[in-house]
């Protein structure tokens, strides 16, 4: 969009977080995506969430695959190491990075082409392994960089810019993530910052595989009448299950909802998510309810959004593998090499 360098100065009264950072410290390079792209709103929501959570930017590793969405990590968290991997393979690279150092925060950004088509296998297996990560799919139903082909999340009957209807059934990544054992699952809309920011915050605070499907209209190729992933269509058919607030630490909870309307979900480090229910029948800690909500709203032609599922006492891949508490990449020869004496014993056992 623009090749101008971003100015470094900012308003002297700009708010700072607990670490003394302003939201500018969480920004990246200027976006090169199309003006009005939904992805830029998601980048802004990530910046906002990290700022509000006071996450040290350099403690985040941001990884992506290939595609418009996968370009976005350049546009946020400039102080974080980033890795633009290969098409559809972000989940495996993120898994490996996480194995190397369990102490960092891992943010995987992908798109519907990257994660629902070429990379669906890697998406599936990273979720079922319970890799501790925030996995965001910026879902626009089309291939943007190659100019407008349908992706695997495009709804059946949804029309391309050229007016051709999509014949194939869509993949619902949220339903898949639930079925695969993701321990934090949400769906949102890039045009609904009020919902998206807390959803991302909750994902960052969650331990385990946190998956967010964020519908993010493509202004260039999928924002026309007849598309089911346009701004207008999503606004008109959005069925939010809840609104949420993420509370870090052990801040007192001041209830201002009617009994039965709210629900508090514990997070592993002492924080919590406070939900205001918009759909009284939805139990956010029940996987089956979440799946049935998706199907029910689908049948009604609605797109269900909000926090669909959250497991309170979740585990991650490192728990399952029983790895040591510290990062593996910090261990040296003293901790890793069994030494000469043991080698001599092994030699002796092989004669």
């Amino acid at each position: 969009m623009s090749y101008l360098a971003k100015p470094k100065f900012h308003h002297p009264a700009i708010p700072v977080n607990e670490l003394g950072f302003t939201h500018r410290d969480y920004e990246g390079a200027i976006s090169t995506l199309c003006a009005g792209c939904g992805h830029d709103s998601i980048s802004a929501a990530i910046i906002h969430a990290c700022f509000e959570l006071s996450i040290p930017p350099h403690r985040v590793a941001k990884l992506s695959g290939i595609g418009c969405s996968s370009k976005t990590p350049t546009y946020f968290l400039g102080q974080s190491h980033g890795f633009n991997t290969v098409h559809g393979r972000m989940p495996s690279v993120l898994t490996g990075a996480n194995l190397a150092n369990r102490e960092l925060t891992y943010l995987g950004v992908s798109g519907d082409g990257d994660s629902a088509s070429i990379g669906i296998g890697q998406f599936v297996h990273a979720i079922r392994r319970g890799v501790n990560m925030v996995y965001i799919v910026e879902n626009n139903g089309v291939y943007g960089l190659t100019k407008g082909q349908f992706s695997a999340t495009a709804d059946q009957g949804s029309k391309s810019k050229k007016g051709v209807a999509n014949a194939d059934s869509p993949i619902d990544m949220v339903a898949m993530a639930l079925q695969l054992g993701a321990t934090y699952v949400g769906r949102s809309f890039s045009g609904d910052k009020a919902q998206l920011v807390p959803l991302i915050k909750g994902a960052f605070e969650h331990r385990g595989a946190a998956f967010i499907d964020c519908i993010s209209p493509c202004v260039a190729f999928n924002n026309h009448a007849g598309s089911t992933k346009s701004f207008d269509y999503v606004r008109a058919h959005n069925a939010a299950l809840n609104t949420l607030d993420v509370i870090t630490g052990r801040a007192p909870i001041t209830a201002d909802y009617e009994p039965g309307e709210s629900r508090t979900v514990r997070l592993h480090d002492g924080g919590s998510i406070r939900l205001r229910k918009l759909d009284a029948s939805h139990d956010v800690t029940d996987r089956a309810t979440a799946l049935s909500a998706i199907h029910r709203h689908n049948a009604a032609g609605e797109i269900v959004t909000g926090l669909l599922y959250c497991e309170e006492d979740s585990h991650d891949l490192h728990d399952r593998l029983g790895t040591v508490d510290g990062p593996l990449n910090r261990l040296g020869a003293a901790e890793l090499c069994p030494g000469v004496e043991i080698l001599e014993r092994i030699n002796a056992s092989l004669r």
Partner: protein
Amino acid sequence: MPIESINEFVVRFANVNGSGSASANQLFARCVMRMGVPVAPRNIFPSNIQGLPTWYEVRISGEGHLGARGGTDLLVAMNPQTWQDDIAALEPDGYLFYDSSRPIPKVQFRDDINIIGMPLTEICNARYKEPRLRQLFKNIIYVGALAALLDIELTVAEQLISEQFKGKDKLIAPNIEALRVGHAYAKEHFACPLGIRVERADNVGDRIFIEGNDAAALGAVYGGATVCAWYPITPSTSLAESFMAYCKRLRADKATGKTKVAIVQAEDELASIGMVVGAGWNGARAFTATSGPGISLMQEFIGLSYFAEIPAVIFDVQRGGPSTGIPTRTQQADILSCAYASHGDTKHVLLLPEDPHEAFEFGALAFDLAERLQTTIFVMLDLDIGSNHRLCKPFTWDSERSYDRGKIMTAEQLEAGETFGRYLDVDGDGVPYRTLPATHPRRGAYFTRGTTKDRFARYSEEGPDYIENMERLLRKFDTAKSLVPPPVETRGPRQASVGVIYYGSTSPAMHEAADLLRRDGIDLDLLRVRGFPFCGAVLDFIEAHEHVLVVEQNRDGQLRTLIQVECGVDPARLTPILHYDGNPITARFIRAAIDRAVRPVAQGHREKVDS
């Protein structure tokens, strides 16, 4: 006249897969080794699990020849399905040992062999009630009988059984008893020993007996690997499984019981190498183990590792190709696909171990090289080395040795204001500095990508940036020449006009062939290549010999091609000697092929020298 030989013969066991023969056959091989006689066993296992044929060939060689010889002197025929072919392959005047419980018509034997029938099934059925025990002890009983027939010390076999079942002590007595039953029967019914027999010697020394995959896995433990991501594929699976077993013992944190390693069985080879690349990017020593088809699947990531400069180690246990080829047979057929793996201009470092000793050495070294060079290092085993027990020098480790983590810029250096350019060639060796994620709150972060970038890791599509980067990568590859293990040269007592280049599992057969050819009047100088990129010694060797042969186990002469291309050698200067039927190359094959190729040249040279 039956074959007569002390300590130089081949025993071939023809078994049914899943019958429990593997451990009995291995016991037999170990007995010979414990008597101080070198032994080289080989599994020949078609791709199936139960009920189908499998063979175990044991070459016994007092002279220490560990390559496959070809031919069988004693056949232990325990599989009726393969009876005819097995008998046909027996050397004239060889020995047939078989289960005579069921009468076999005379036409199914040969007249020119010596037949030893023992009613193994009958003996077992009389002694054991349970079908599984009948099966298992039948194997031990034939080992006992073979001990008598080949003059193997029974005490040696008993000692090995006691060691094998240590901790499951109640199994020791019945196994020893079965062994003695076989031994006593053979003593009573046959003229023991046969013309071929084992005589105690002292030719094993302090060597160890281990599979190459097992050794490579131990090398990865010693080399500090903390992440292993893999996908099952024959014949590499046992490498990852062996790594798991070693880590269980050697990587458990004593205080907490937690483990200092992460091992993930991935969903496919793409994910395996993806995890390795992710872990390498984040500063862990990571590897995967695979075989040819896995290498094909990993191509894109290997290119990313090359271009984004991320340490990774791949153990490639080569098998017959192309495509799925002959998955349970050996070849050296991935040399080119690894050396030039991926799209674009790429070249990769290969290490070529000859046996388990070097599989351990290079297995550990690969992790230092991967971090030093920030790229993928291939350790090229093959099925012959990987899946067979091989006698080799014991493993060694320098107690002072630490890991070479390569050029990693620290928080202190960044704090002190040192210039950090991820792809900046500060030292002139083509190797840039890297930072690990979370090193410093404000400095040293960069964006890793496979696409073109400038020396400060900023996205760039500019031609000069691309060329500068690609040329630096070539300088880096040049640096690798001095870091990979140098070739090993073996010169004969006389100056030879014929030089032979070979590598990997061809080694024992090549040495044996060179001895045989020397006796035939053909002298050879040998050069064993142990790494790619090639250093100057390879070209020097070629220039110093009138006739140069390249012996390898593939159809297309892949190392020969690599030498031609990378050293700029005229193809006419390099004569290929190729063996690729899936069986390990033999000295007999090499001897005949070299004889055909060089007799006029070598003899002419001898005449010149002698006159």
